[in-house]
């Protein structure tokens, strides 16, 4: 029964792949969405009945096992729920595209693989899902493969992911060598007592985290995410905002029993999370593509999630996954609606003044931006504040983390407003035919996502208000001692972060409506636009030397072949040279004969 949740979308992939071309629009989209909804209902049903397990013989020592507990159920709800909404949106967005059925086939495949990842009870099974979503990501980013640039972006994503996957595999290998099993439940029990080999385990933890770095676009493997915007907007929403990129956070949470025992590794995770959050926020200021702004925002928010996971607050990280899924998907889909309205325009410098023309999408955009920025009482506010509090209360945290996260919160609010202001407010900078609102099939998912962005935060309110999420997830995560702040301190911090958020939002709102910007900002913006030259640095240090090496090897290989051909030529020349000895004259032969005899005799004599 549990397997059904994975098999249904997989069935969709198969059917649409084989017969999709014969189906008329919008049947592929409807079929795909229905299957995802079915998966959602099955999963929720199983979760409410207390969870489920599935196990079958697979590799020697490694069974194919799936587990639906609170943690994986939580993720399943996010994946299939938000996935379903985005599927419905895509029915409208991809209308008219010649690859319509192929798109939904890939989309369903992605859902199937993501569910495999989430429901896995052993690392190899998770790895299958891990690789599967990487593949789906590649297929979907490069969906319009005829464009060379898009194809290159897809390849870039896959390759950078692969680097992380190597870490995942090596981490798995170490765990296998140490414990002889890769089943998560069994490993959890094995790590209850004193650790067997702390330094080796730390290495394993670090390597698994490397996998997460690749999949979730943390520094230094974040370069693929902005280029992944080459794919259609629903792809960006589902894969690169709500689900795939959070797979890394899920991995850390699932392996919390490991990381709770590794303080140094957890500290590293938190530091990288903070650096990534800062990098993403700073780079978002200079982007001119509407989707790239949101992409960098995703990088930044993922950094927040890893910060939370690093300090030991695994449920807080998952809480942010939850709220982020809503408001980020909303932002992406709203961007999609704007792009759709403007007939394909994606440059914000050519947008503006859409407030008047798009009565519903404007609210989607506003709610999404405010949630991202952390307007008090919206979902983003609650989850971000939970993270901020966690940096001070959880064992691996510290004041530095708190201040850094607070600073990034201000930046987040500012660039969120920048996005909103440039797209919807101000005067119309582009020359467009009359922008039309999106069709209902695209609006209704956004309505629901907007509702989620407002209400999702109420799942886990700070003490003493009801917190439903933490006890729900607690049995599945590691026990981490968190000391509690006094009530006054806690709510004081909440007020502070609220004030900071409001300040940021207001600053962003006013600053970006200016006509002219100060020169220091323009320099900063220029640096930010190039995302601080990360791509260029990688190209110079890694990509181009490797390319040169590959070319040299290829050339060497060719010249080796030519050398072999040349060997034949050399032998021929040599033969021709020797053949000239055969003049045909008897006397020449006699001379050579005597010469040979002389040589022989001489050798024999001495």
């Amino acid at each position: 029964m549990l397997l059904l949740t994975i098999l249904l979308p997989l069935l969709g992939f198969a059917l649409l792949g084989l017969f999709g071309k014969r189906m008329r629009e919008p049947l592929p989209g409807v079929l795909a969405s229905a299957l995802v909804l079915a998966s959602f209902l099955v999963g929720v049903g199983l979760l409410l009945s207390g969870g489920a397990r599935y196990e079958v013989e697979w590799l020697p020592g490694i069974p194919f096992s799936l587990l639906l507990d609170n943690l994986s159920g939580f993720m399943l709800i996010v994946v299939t729920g938000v996935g379903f909404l985005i599927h419905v949106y895509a029915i409208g967005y991809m209308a008219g595209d010649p690859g319509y059925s192929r798109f939904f086939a890939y989309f369903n495949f992605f859902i199937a693989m993501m569910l495999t990842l989430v429901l896995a009870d052993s690392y190899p099974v998770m790895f299958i899902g891990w690789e599967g979503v990487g593949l789906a990501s590649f297929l979907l980013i490069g969906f319009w493969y005829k464009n060379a640039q898009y194809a290159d972006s897809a390849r870039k994503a896959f390759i950078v992911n692969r680097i992380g996957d190597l870490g995942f595999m090596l981490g798995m290998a170490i765990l296998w060598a140490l414990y002889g099993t890769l089943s998560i439940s069994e490993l959890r029990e094995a790590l209850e007592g004193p650790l067997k080999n702390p330094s080796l385990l730390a290495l394993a933890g670090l390597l698994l985290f490397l996998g997460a770095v690749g999949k979730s676009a943390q520094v230094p493997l974040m370069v693929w995410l902005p280029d992944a915007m080459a794919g259609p907007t629903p792809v960006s929403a589902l894969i690169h905002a709500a689900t795939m990129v959070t797979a890394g956070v899920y991995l850390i949470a699932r392996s919390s029993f490991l990381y709770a025992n590794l303080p140094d590794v957890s500290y590293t995770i938190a530091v990288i999370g903070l650096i990534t959050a800062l990098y993403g926020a700073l780079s978002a200021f200079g982007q001119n593509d509407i989707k790239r702004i949101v992409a960098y925002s995703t990088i930044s928010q993922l950094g927040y999630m890893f910060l939370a996971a690093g300090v030991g607050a695994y449920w807080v990280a998952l809480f942010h996954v939850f709220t982020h899924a809503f408001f980020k998907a909303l932002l992406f889909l709203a961007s999609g609606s704007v792009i759709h309205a403007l007939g394909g325009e994606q440059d914000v410098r050519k947008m503006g003044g859409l407030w008047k023309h798009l009565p519903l999408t404007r609210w989607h955009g506003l709610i999404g931006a405010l949630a991202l920025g952390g307007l008090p009482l919206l979902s983003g506010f609650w989850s971000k504040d939970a993270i901020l509090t966690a940096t001070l209360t959880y064992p691996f945290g510290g004041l530095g983390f708190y201040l850094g996260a607070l600073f990034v919160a201000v930046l987040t609010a500012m660039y969120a407003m920048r996005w909103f202001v440039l797209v919807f407010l101000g005067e119309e900078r582009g020359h467009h035919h009359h922008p039309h609102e999106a069709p209902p099939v695209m609006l209704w998912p956004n309505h629901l996502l907007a509702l989620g962005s407002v209400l999702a935060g109420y799942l886990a309110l700070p003490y003493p208000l009801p917190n439903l999420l933490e006890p729900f997830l607690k049995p599945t995560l590691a026990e981490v001692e968190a000391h509690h702040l006094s009530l006054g301190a806690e709510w004081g911090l909440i007020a502070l972060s609220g004030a900071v958020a409001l300040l940021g939002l207001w600053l962003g709102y006013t600053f970006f409506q200016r006509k002219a910007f100060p020169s220091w900002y323009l320099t900063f913006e220029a640096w930010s636009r190039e995302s601080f030259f990360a791509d260029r640095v990688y190209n110079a240090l890694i990509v181009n030397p490797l390319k040169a090496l590959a070319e040299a090897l290829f050339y060497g290989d060719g010249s080796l072949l030519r050398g072999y051909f040349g060997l034949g030529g050399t032998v021929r020349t040599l033969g021709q040279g020797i053949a000239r000895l055969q003049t045909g004259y008897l006397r020449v032969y006699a001379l050579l004969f005597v010469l040979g005899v002389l040589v022989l005799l001489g050798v024999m004599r001495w």
Partner: protein
Amino acid sequence: MTPWEALALLLLLFTGVLVVTLRNAIHAALALIGNFLILAGIYVALEARFLGFIQIIVYAGAIVVLFLFVIMLLYAAQGEVGFDPLVRSRPLAALLALGVALVLLSGLWGVNLAFTKDLQGGLPQALGPLLYGDWLFVLLAVGFLLMAATVVAVALVQPTRPLDALSPEERKEEKEVVR
């Protein structure tokens, strides 16, 4: 070394030079005969009397005569015929010959043998037991070789008779079969 010996060796070498330098083939053959005769004398001096006689009878008397017959048969008396494409090979040939001589001489260097064996004059009485004793097989083999050589020599100089012997009609059939 007695003066006779010295003279004999000098003449030997002299006739040898004549053989390789004279232009006229008949003159060269005659020089070779002279060489063989002196050689026979040397054999006698070296207590190989039977061999000396055989040298004269077989070598000088049969072989060189055969040479002369062939020279006359083919009108090949002239030594230098036609255009010489390898004129510059002469110094090289001399060099190689010198090289051969040097290598062989170096083989003789330091050879200390006492040339005092009693050969009983090299007469048939002395050679007979050896020939029909240890060397019987060799003797018979050489006999066989001579017989084979005779057959070969006759076969080689046959004119192309078979086809000429056919009548014109038979010759046409032969040609068709061949095609």
